């Protein structure tokens, strides 16, 4: 029976943090705590006594966090920066996914691996979800432009909806632009003229 490992995820982004918590549930022997607020981090970490800390690589407060971790280390707290030269590809994968990991000195590799693998996978899936959401939002905004431009053409030139749309499409094709760009241009021009 192995001892339970305590993983602390420092992430102001709750959704992403819970994806990691969720992902680790299929393994036994891990306890996960999410810290969303970096204020008073040194004290929190001292009381939480984590074995593994995961933090977003892009977090602007990460340099301060490093100072805290090295201070804990000097106070003989069991937190050391992850140094595992034997598994460069795993660390590179983590960095490319945007994660940095800090691990207790001398921890067995087979216990770290599933944690990192899960975190990497969850960071990637979070990125994908975010990308999808952004694309959907942009598409909706574009549709709004096209609808408004259609309405304007129908009124100004007395066209049917279908005629208005084919006019936009033809213009877009002639100019090698996207329909939504033409629509947006028309709306901007109209705003200036009317």
């Amino acid at each position, binding site marked *: 029976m192995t001892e339970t490992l305590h993983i602390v995820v420092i992430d102001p982004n709750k959704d992403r943090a819970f994806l990691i918590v969720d992902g680790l549930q299929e393994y036994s022997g891990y306890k996960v705590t999410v810290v969303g607020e970096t204020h008073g981090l040194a004290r929190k970490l001292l009381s939480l006594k984590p074995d593994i800390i995961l933090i977003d690589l*892009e977090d*602007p407060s990460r*340099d*301060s966090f490093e*100072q805290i971790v090295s201070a804990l280390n000097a106070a003989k707290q069991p937190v050391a920066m992850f*140094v595992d030269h034997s598994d460069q590809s795993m*660390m*590179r994968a983590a*960095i490319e996914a945007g994660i*940095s990991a800090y691990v207790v000195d001398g921890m067995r590799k087979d216990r770290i691996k599933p944690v990192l693998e899960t975190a990497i996978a969850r960071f990637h899936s979070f990125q994908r979800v975010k990308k999808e959401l952004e694309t959907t939002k942009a598409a909706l905004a574009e549709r709004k432009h096209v609808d408004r431009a259609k309405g304007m053409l129908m009124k100004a030139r007395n066209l049917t909806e279908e005629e208005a749309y084919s006019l936009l499409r033809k213009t877009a094709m002639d100019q090698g632009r996207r329909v939504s760009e033409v629509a947006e241009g028309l709306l901007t021009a109209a705003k200036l003229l009317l």
Partner: protein
Amino acid sequence: MSKAINIGFVPLTDAAPLILAVEMGFAEEEGLSINLVREHNWSSVRDKLSFGVLDGAHILLPMALAMSLGLAPAPNKIDIPIILNMNGNSFVAGNKLTKKIKAVGGVFGKTKDIGEALITLTQESPIRVAVPFLQSMHVTMLRHLISQLGHTPETVFDFHVCAPSSIEMALNTGNVDAFMVGAPWATNAIDNGSGHLMLTSNSIWQGAPEKAFGIRRQWLDEHRNEAEQMVRVLYRAANWVSNPSNASVASEILSNPKYLDLDTNHIESNLRGDILVKSNGMTINEPLALQFDAKRIGFPWKSTAAWIAEQNAPYWGVSIEDARTIAREACRTDIYRSALESVKAPLPSANEKVEGSLKARTSVSGFHEPIFGPDAFFDGITFDVA
């Protein structure tokens, strides 16, 4: 065109040579394709360089030396073929500390005076100073100021690492008493009424390099030609930035959301050498406060890096011998020379100088105007690595 080179930068005014190398077409003219990657913290620059996610970066010079000395999660040799800028950091006191310094008779802008006032005030407790990173010129310079006045830096300063973007907040919430930070963050904070300029870094050491262009040695060994092209591109871009008539265009580009994402005004005034002292608009013009002029400051002197590494050696737990050796190896004067011979850049006859010995600009053979220096320390010391 060859494969794009991945170069990291942290959003600061002194990333200007890299950003303008791309934006003003200097890179394209050389046939170089650069992929600029904005990083949000220095640890991330270090880790991405370590693992080869980045080939090179805008980097704190001491951090590059520390990496080569093995002080990183995944150590890797980082070489320095060119210095991007000299000085540029400001030491700013919060309003509370400002009052205390005045109460003990400290005069703002006078290096020795400020140092002595801080030492006097330390009898209560150490001054808490926010800095962006410990392996930095910020920390190196402040320690030098105190140790040369006969005191132990650790008893005077308690350094708190803080991202430049939150350094002003750290001051306002009372988490620190002062900060040392690069442009344009100091001027931004002073303009907001958060603090008062104590010193600019050049008043501690006129010859202090600030950011270097750091490149993985492994990459350099495999891409010698591109590395030389890179040096030429940065040399030209930095000379372009240093011309005051380009300051408004340069600051306009730097302020773009994908680069610094900050107001142009302070970036521009700092590029012109104007440093805000107080929120009432009092400004000093100090051309040495932030220098980009590559023909004067680009050369990666081995002696300069050796001094910096030696100062940090006791704090980093490395021997002075190793610090000197690694620092000299990291400064690729060979690349600088071969890259810039063809464009008739001023090249010194040696790779090392007596640091602190140039009291004024000095000439170099083949050039009428004086080029190198001044590089004096506030306390007049000299350092000969030879």
